[in-house]
């Protein structure tokens, strides 16, 4: 039941915030802040209470919804969802905090949208019924469309359309795939149901499996995004208000990654294996292409947006490597990228608030004026390029090691992507905070609220860099489940030997990484 509350609190909070916003913007802000905080506390309680029992789920809720079609309201939470929910509410709190001053009109409706997006995302991370999953998948879209379309920058209308149509089109393909899967399963067993656990292991011809997986992949790869389908991302990220960019980058992209792990691999093991070579190529292409394009941008937000394409490439690469180490890397990457890229978007938002431009050519030499912001920016720029000691390093390192065992060439190519990542990351620092001073206007450094938001992010990213074990332990059962249900795990284990992850392992591997960097 607690899982239902997570969603209900956000939805109700959203409605209250909207109603309150008419007369009292402050009340609306506080209501939304409180409801997200409340949700964060709830998931943390779950985290501290629940050591994983024998079953698959830490906690579960199930009731029938539309029995005529075997549609259930089935929510369940395992380690993976738990981690992502913690991330969701953490980022959610930040999203409300950083909009405190930035959003000055239609405050109520703004917070309604934020909370409903978070509710949709929560639903996506918890749904164990494919119909319900699709339902929440779509619920995220409309409020995001409003967020970009109403509070965005100058080209917002175009960006909001593009975002909506890309995700909706790909989502509908997934919808058909879900229905096809439902019908095939019903045909085989006589049990027509959308329940995830029932549908796992549905037997079908390899052609059908490939096609149906194609529908799922369409939705997830567009959302992630993977290179040929990424063109909505730079526009949406750039035009969205800061909170919108933050949620898009830190949370919404993760729903695509989550979908790959939760649905594509377990539901279509054979097709996923057949697709793996192509998938890994897409991943590598994303890493290289995203990095090169990021390097060429002059718009700060657009630059950061392309770094997401770069970082998400690692996720695709890792998912199709089918081993535990790569999967740990993927989970780590979801969280670390959520924090680091989110922080970079916040910083660009704060720069925009002060300079009213996102153009890198008009910035420069800002360190003198805003040293605190500069220092924090440096941390996240370093995180983005994968500096050891910060979360992203652990993620990318694990992914690369996992991939290396499957395909050396792709691992090498992906490492080259890291080199380019270093180039674009350092370019951010150089252009914004170092060099000649371009603007004469006096600038205020971070306020307490802003430095509090960014400060917690710094703590989290450093913590993840030094003590990733907590995340690894939490995610482990879920990852093993994914691998088990796909039948890949045993195979890999017997072929490649056992790779238990321990802290020792991590520590001993750091030198390898610096070699990669040096190349």
């Amino acid at each position, binding site marked *: 039941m607690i899982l239902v509350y997570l969603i209900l609190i956000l939805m109700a909070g959203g409605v209250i915030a909207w109603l309150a916003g008419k007369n009292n913007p402050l009340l609306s802000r506080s209501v939304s802040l409180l409801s997200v905080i409340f949700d964060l506390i709830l998931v943390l309680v779950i985290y501290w209470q629940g050591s994983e029992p024998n079953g698959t789920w830490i906690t579960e809720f199930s009731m029938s*919804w*539309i*029995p*005529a*079609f075997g549609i259930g309201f089935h929510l369940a939470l395992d380690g993976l969802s738990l981690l992502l929910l913690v991330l969701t509410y953490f980022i959610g709190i930040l999203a409300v905090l950083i909009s405190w001053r930035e959003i000055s009109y*239609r405050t109520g409706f703004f917070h309604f949208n934020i909370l409903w997006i978070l509710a949709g995302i929560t639903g996506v991370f918890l749904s164990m019924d494919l*119909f319900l999953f*699709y*339902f*929440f998948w*779509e*619920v995220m*879209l*409309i409020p995001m*469309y*409003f967020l970009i*379309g*109403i509070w965005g920058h100058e080209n917002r*209308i175009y960006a*909001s*359309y593009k975002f*909506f*149509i890309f995700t*909706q*089109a790909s989502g*509908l*393909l997934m*919808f*058909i795939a879900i*229905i*096809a899967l*439902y*019908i095939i399963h019903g045909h085989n067993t006589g049990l027509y149901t959308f329940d995830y656990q029932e549908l796992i292991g549905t037997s079908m011809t390899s052609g059908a499996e490939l096609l149906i997986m194609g529908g799922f992949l369409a939705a997830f790869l567009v959302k992630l995004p993977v290179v040929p389908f990424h063109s909505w991302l730079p526009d949406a990220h750039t035009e969205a208000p800061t909170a919108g960019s933050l949620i898009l980058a830190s949370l919404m992209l993760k729903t695509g990654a989550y979908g790959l792990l939760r649905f594509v691999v377990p539901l279509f093991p054979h097709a996923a294996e057949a697709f793996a070579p192509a998938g890994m190529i897409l991943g590598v292409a994303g890493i290289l292409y995203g990095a090169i394009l990021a390097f060429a941008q002059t718009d700060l937000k657009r630059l950061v947006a392309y770094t997401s394409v770069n970082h998400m490439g690692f996720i695709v690469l890792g998912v199709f490597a089918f081993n535990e180490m790569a999967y740990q890397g993927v989970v780590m990457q979801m969280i670390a990228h959520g924090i680091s890229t989110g922080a970079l978007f916040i910083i660009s938002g704060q720069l925009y608030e002060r300079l009213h431009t996102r153009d890198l050519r008009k910035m420069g030499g800002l360190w003198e004026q805003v040293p605190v912001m500069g220092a924090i920016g440096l941390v996240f720029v370093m995180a983005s390029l994968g500096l050891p000691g910060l979360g992203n390093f652990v993620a990318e390192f694990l992914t690369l090691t996992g991939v290396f065992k499957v395909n050396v060439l792709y691992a090498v190519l992906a490492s080259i992507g890291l080199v380019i990542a270093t180039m674009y990351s350092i370019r951010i620092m150089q252009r914004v905070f170092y060099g000649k001073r371009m603007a004469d206007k006096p600038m205020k450094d971070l306020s307490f609220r802003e430095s509090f938001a960014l400060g917690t992010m710094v703590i989290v990213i450093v913590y993840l860099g030094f003590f990733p074990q907590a995340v690894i332990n939490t995610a482990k059962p879920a990852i093993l489940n994914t691998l088990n249900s796909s039948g890949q795990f045993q195979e890999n284990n017997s072929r490649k030997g056992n790779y238990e992850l321990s802290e020792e392992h991590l520590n001993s591997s750091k030198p390898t990484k610096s070699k990669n960097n040096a190349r």
Partner: protein
Amino acid sequence: MHDSLTKLDLLCLIPLLIVASAPVIMMLTITVSRNLKVIYGFSLIMFAVAFLSVFFIVPHIPHRIEPLLVIDSFSLVFLGTLLCICLLITVISYVYLTQHGGQREEYFVMFFVATLGACVLVTASHFVTFFIGLETLSISLYVLIAFVKHRNYSVEAGVKFLVIASLSTAFLLFGMALMYASTGTMSFTGLADYFSASGLSPLMTIGIGMMLVGIGFKLALVPFHMWIPDVYQGAPAPVTTFIATISKGSVLAISIRFFHAIRGFESGALVITVSVIAVLSMFAGNLLALNQTNFKRLLAYSSIAHLGYLMITLLTGTVLGTQAAVFYMISYMITTVGAFGIISLLSVCESEPEKTDDMKGLFWKNPWIAIVLSLVLLSLAGIPLTAGFIAKFYLVLAGVRSGLWLLVMSLIINSVISIYYYLRIIKIMFTESESQEHVRLTFTGNLVLAIVVIGILVLGIIPSFLSDLLNRFSGMI
């Protein structure tokens, strides 16, 4: 076959009788004294009573009044929905008519006659009742469309509708004649028996083709759709609502019955024809709607697309297909009442806010109406939490289950296209505008909108009650 009506027959016809008696009483009242309020109140009561009487019949179904009418769960669901929607349109019409002077009482007389035609259509199981129902509906619509005659385009729309409707009726009649000539029967049960025994003869093919043309005109499917934007635009908004919901819904109901009687989904030629019509309607409707700046015309084009989607259900030939059609039509009707209802409720004197730019800034000027309209548009686009989503789910499910992949894919492509123009209107509503005038709605107007919102949300979130009801259809076909 009976020689005369039995008591049970009469009982089953109560809703129709009520609807038929109302205009007579009203006409007599009008000859004594004119009072719009009285007539309005009387209409409300009669519709409400007719609607409630539907529930009295439920224990007696299925009941056939040979050979003309059939009262089964299918017709009852449609009857109930039609009467319910009529109730809403009555309220909208009254609010609309109070903006106009002159003699307006006859509006409701014609309204009832049109409704009677629609009710006959959904219960018809014979060519004669099919034809009578259709003509009763159409002839009263000629009058209704041109009712507010000093409005722009009103008379033009009436005449256009008259010509098109006569033309399509001619096709329909000729088709019926050919069918009769080759099968020797005019009742649907007779046709069903005939078709299960023997196949199509060339004469019959022509007959069915002619009837398809007639039905195509009535439902405004491509290539018989030219009239619909003009009529939608020209007719007073409440009448447009009536055409978009009651008229289309009832014709769809009889088409489903007819198509099942002749087992159209088994004949290759028919399947191809209907598929082509469906795909063309989806694409043409949506593409033509893309850049429309007139809201009523936009909805007209979108209705072409929606009827195109509905054609999928005809081809499935399954119970699930019929359920999908009914669910889709019901949700479409509720949504459409919302859309046109807002236009009528916002209209001041002769001017209806039919330009899409009239909606500018509505989100900030009048959030309640804007929210309703957004919900309506999202439902038309098939976004979750709304009725349209479950309806689309039904369609896709029925289509995929019968292996109609081409049609389903074209449905998906078109849903994406359609999102563009539905979002465009929503976007217009939240762009800022200078004017700050605030339209106040009457209580009953708000009530209608509230009912629409509840309908859309309930069907979208807890559709079980309707889908359980529809599950009783299994015995129908």
